[in-house]
C-alpha cells in the first residue's frame, strides 16, 4: 500500500487530498482550484481508493451515497405499490388469497398476487432492500467518520499557505505590534469559548468540533431503530392480533398458548350529551349529531387451570375484572389488551308468534337463539314449530337458492314448519326479515315477527411488544444526532505569521455569516484587517 508522505513530514493514507497535518494540497488536480473542497477535510475516503478483493468491491458498493439514495428511492416506490390493493392479512378469510385477488380485482389482482405484492412487507426482496439500507448506513458512516476523525485529530496549528489561501474566508494584513494584538485576540477568542492552540506565533482557534459527529450519531440511532424492527421477527418479541368477543362470550386470547381467556361482560358506547356536558361542545354535537365520549369493554380475564386438549372445556380461574377503554389497556404478563373497534346491536335472538291468519289468534311465542337455534319449539296443545333450515346471513344465490354468506347472524332467514292440531303434517313458510314466502301455496298459519334482542361485539387488540424500548432509544439517539449537527457549528480560525504579514483564514461547516461576525469582533481595533469571503467576492465580480 502506498502512503503519501507530505513535505511537512506527516504520512497520509493513500488517496488523501489535503495533508491531514498541515493542509498542503497533495493531489495535482486540486492545485489549480481557487478554493479547496473541505468536505471530510480532504481526507481519503477509503472505499474510493482500494478495489482489489471481492470484499472491497462489496464494501465500496455500499459505501456509495449514490447507491444509498437509490436504495431509499426504490424502497419508497415499493412501499407505495404495496398500498394499491389490500395486503393478504387484511382480506376477509372467505377464500384462498390466490383466488380472492383475481375474483375481486380481475387480472390486475392476479398479477398483483403473482408478483407477490399481496405480502409485500414481509417478502424477501423487500426485507433485502431494508437490510441493504441498513448496511449502506453502517458502511457509509464508517467510511466517512473514521478518516474525518483522523484528519481532525492530526491537524497541526500551522497550516500550509496553500491551504489557508484556498479557504473561503481569507485575508492578509501588514501588521505591527503583533504581540499586543495577539494577546487581545486570544483573550477575545477565549471569551467566545474557542479552544486555542499556539505554536511559533501561529494560532489555531477551534470550537464545536462535536457538531461534526451529529450525522454519525444520527445514523447510529437509525441503525438501533432498524435492529429494533429486526427483533420483531424473533418469536415472542412482538405480537399483534385481533380478538372479537360478543357480550356474554368467553374466548381464548390468541398467542397466550391457550392459557388466558377473556369474557366480555358489556360493551359501552357513551356520547356527549348536549344538555349535561360542557356547553362549549353543544355546537359541535349539533353539527355532527353525535360525538363519542367513551368506548369501553367491561371484561373478565381468566387463566386456565391444569392441562386440557384443544376443544375440551377448560377449567377457568378468574384473574381480574377490568374496564378496557381507549388508551387504558388491560395489562398482564407483558400483554396489553386494547379497545380497538366494536359492532353495535348484532342480532342475537329473534322472537316469533304463531298466528292463525284469518282470526289473528296467537298460539304462543318462540324465542330463537340465532347462534344456536333449536330444531323444534313446542308450544303445547298440539302446536309446534320446526326449523327446517336456517340461514344466519341469508341471500339468494345465482340459481335462486337461499344460502348463507357467513356464520354471523347479520340477516337471518328460516324455513319453518308450522304444526297445529288441524295441520298435523305442518305448513312450510320461508321467513326472512320483512319477507315471507309460502312455497306450497296459501297457508292458514303464519309466523309473526315479535321482536329482537341484540348484543354488542367488542374488538380487542392483543399486543405484546418487547422491542418498543429499543425503537424508542434509537429514536432518541437519532434526535440527539440531529440536534448535535444542527444547533452547533464547527468553527476554526487560523492565524499565521508569514514574514511581516499575518495570514488569517476561517472555516465553518455552516452559518458562514456567524463566523464572519465573530472574526470581525475578535479583530476589532487590533490593526489586522477583516478577511474576505472569497465566494462572495467572486460572485460580485
Amino acid at each position, binding site marked *: 500500500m502506498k502512503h503519501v508522505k507530505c513535505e511537512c513530514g506527516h504520512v497520509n493514507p493513500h488517496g488523501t487530498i489535503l495533508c491531514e497535518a498541515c493542509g498542503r494540497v497533495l493531489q495535482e488536480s486540486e492545485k489549480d482550484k481557487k478554493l479547496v473542497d473541505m468536505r471530510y477535510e480532504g481526507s481519503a475516503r477509503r472505499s474510493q481508493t482500494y478495489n482489489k478483493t471481492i470484499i472491497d468491491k462489496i464494501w465500496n458498493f455500499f459505501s456509495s451515497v449514490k447507491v444509498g439514495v437509490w436504495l431509499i428511492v426504490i424502497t419508497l416506490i415499493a412501499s407505495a405499490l404495496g398500498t394499491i390493493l389490500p395486503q393478504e392479512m387484511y382480506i376477509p378469510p372467505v377464500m384462498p388469497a390466490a383466488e380472492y385477488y383475481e375474483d375481486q380485482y380481475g387480472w390486475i389482482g392476479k398479477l398483483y398476487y403473482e408478483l407477490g405484492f399481496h405480502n409485500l412487507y414481509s417478502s424477501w426482496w423487500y426485507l*433485502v432492500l431494508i437490510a441493504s439500507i441498513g448496511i449502506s448506513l453502517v458502511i457509509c458512516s464508517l467510511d466517512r467518520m473514521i478518516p474525518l476523525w483522523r484528519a481532525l485529530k492530526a491537524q497541526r496549528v500551522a497550516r500550509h499557505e496553500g491551504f489557508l489561501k484556498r479557504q473561503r474566508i481569507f485575508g492578509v494584513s501588514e501588521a505591527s505590534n503583533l504581540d499586543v494584538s495577539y494577546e487581545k485576540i486570544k483573550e477575545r477568542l477565549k471569551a467566545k469559548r474557542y479552544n486555542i492552540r499556539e505554536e511559533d506565533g501561529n494560532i489555531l482557534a477551534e470550537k464545536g468540533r462535536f457538531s461534526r459527529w451529529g450525522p454519525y450519531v444520527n445514523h447510529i440511532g437509525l441503525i438501533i431503530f432498524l435492529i429494533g424492527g429486526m427483533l420483531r421477527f424473533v*418469536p415472542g418479541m412482538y405480537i399483534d392480533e385481533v380478538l372479537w368477543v360478543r357480550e356474554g362470550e368467553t374466548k381464548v386470547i390468541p398467542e397466550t398458548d391457550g392459557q388466558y381467556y377473556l369474557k366480555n361482560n358489556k360493551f359501552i358506547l357513551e356520547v356527549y350529551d348536549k344538555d349535561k356536558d360542557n356547553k362549549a361542545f353543544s355546537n359541535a354535537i349539533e353539527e355532527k349529531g353525535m360525538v363519542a365520549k367513551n368506548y369501553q369493554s367491561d371484561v373478565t380475564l381468566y387463566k386456565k387451570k391444569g392441562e386440557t386438549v*384443544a*376443544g375440551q372445556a377448560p377449567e377457568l380461574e378468574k384473574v381480574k375484572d377490568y374496564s378496557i377503554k381507549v388508551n387504558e389497556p388491560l395489562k398482564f404478563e407483558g400483554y396489553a389488551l386494547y379497545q380497538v373497534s366494536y359492532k353495535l346491536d348484532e342480532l342475537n335472538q329473534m322472537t316469533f308468534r304463531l298466528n292463525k291468519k284469518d282470526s289473528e289468534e296467537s298460539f304462543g311465542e318462540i324465542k330463537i337463539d340465532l347462534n344456536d337455534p333449536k330444531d323444534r319449539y313446542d308450544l303445547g296443545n298440539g302446536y309446534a314449530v320446526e326449523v327446517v333450515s336456517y340461514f344466519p346471513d341469508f341471500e339468494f344465490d345465482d340459481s335462486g337458492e337461499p344460502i348463507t354468506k357467513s*356464520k354471523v347472524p347479520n340477516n337471518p332467514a328460516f324455513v319453518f314448519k308450522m304444526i297445529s292440531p288441524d295441520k298435523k303434517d305442518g305448513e312450510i313458510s320461508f321467513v326472512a326479515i320483512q319477507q315471507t314466502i309460502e312455497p306450497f301455496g296459501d297457508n292458514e298459519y303464519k309466523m309473526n315477527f315479535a321482536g329482537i334482542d341484540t348484543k354488542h361485539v367488542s374488538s380487542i387488540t392483543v399486543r405484546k411488544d418487547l422491542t418498543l424500548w429499543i425503537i424508542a432509544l434509537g429514536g432518541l439517539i437519532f434526535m440527539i444526532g440531529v440536534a448535535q449537527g444542527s444547533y452547533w457549528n464547527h468553527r476554526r480560525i487560523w492565524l499565521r505569521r508569514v514574514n511581516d504579514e499575518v495570514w488569517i483564514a476561517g472555516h465553518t461547516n455552516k452559518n458562514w455569516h456567524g463566523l464572519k461576525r465573530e472574526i470581525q469582533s475578535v479583530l476589532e481595533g487590533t490593526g489586522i484587517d477583516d478577511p474576505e469571503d472569497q465566494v462572495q467576492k467572486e460572485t460580485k465580480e
Partner: protein
Amino acid sequence: MKKRRLVIRTIILLILGAAVAYTLYANFTKDDIKKVVIGEQAPDFVLVDLNGEEHRLSDYKGQGVFLNFWGTYCKPCEKEMPYMDNQYKQFKDKGVQTLAVNVGESELSVSKFAERHKLTFPIVLDKDGQVQTAYKIGALPATFMIDKDGKVVKYHTGQLTEEMIKELMEQVQP
C-alpha cells in the same frame, strides 16, 4: 495494514450479513410457526360430533386421518363434501379416517347441511374456536393429512377434487 483492513471489512460484512440472514430466516419460518408444522405432531384435540360422540385425534393413532376444516357458507367446501363422502366410504375400512371440523356454526345449520348432502363421515363442532386457533385456520376449506403416527404430512387450502382426495388418502394409508 492492508491485511488488517481486509480482516476488519470481512468481519463487519459478516456480522451485517448474519443479521440480514437471520431476519430473512425468521421471516420465512414465521409462517410455519403459524401453521402446523409439516412433519411434526398434529395438535391433539377432543370434539363432539353431531351424534354426541367424542372424537379425540390421538385415539386414531395407527390410522391415517383426513382432517378437514369447513363452513356451510363456504362454497368450495360444499363442492368437495360429496367427494369426501365417497372417498370416506372407500377408505374407512382401509385405515383412513375422515374428520370434518365445522368452524363454530350452530348445530342446527350443520346438521341440516349434513342431512341435505347425506354426509356419513363424522362432523365435529368447534364451537369456541379452540381447535381453529390451535391449527391457525384462516381461509376455508383447509385440509390436513395426518399419518398413522399422528404427524402432519400435508396441508392444503382451497377446494379438492375427488382425484386429489383419493391421492391424499392413499398417502396416509398405513
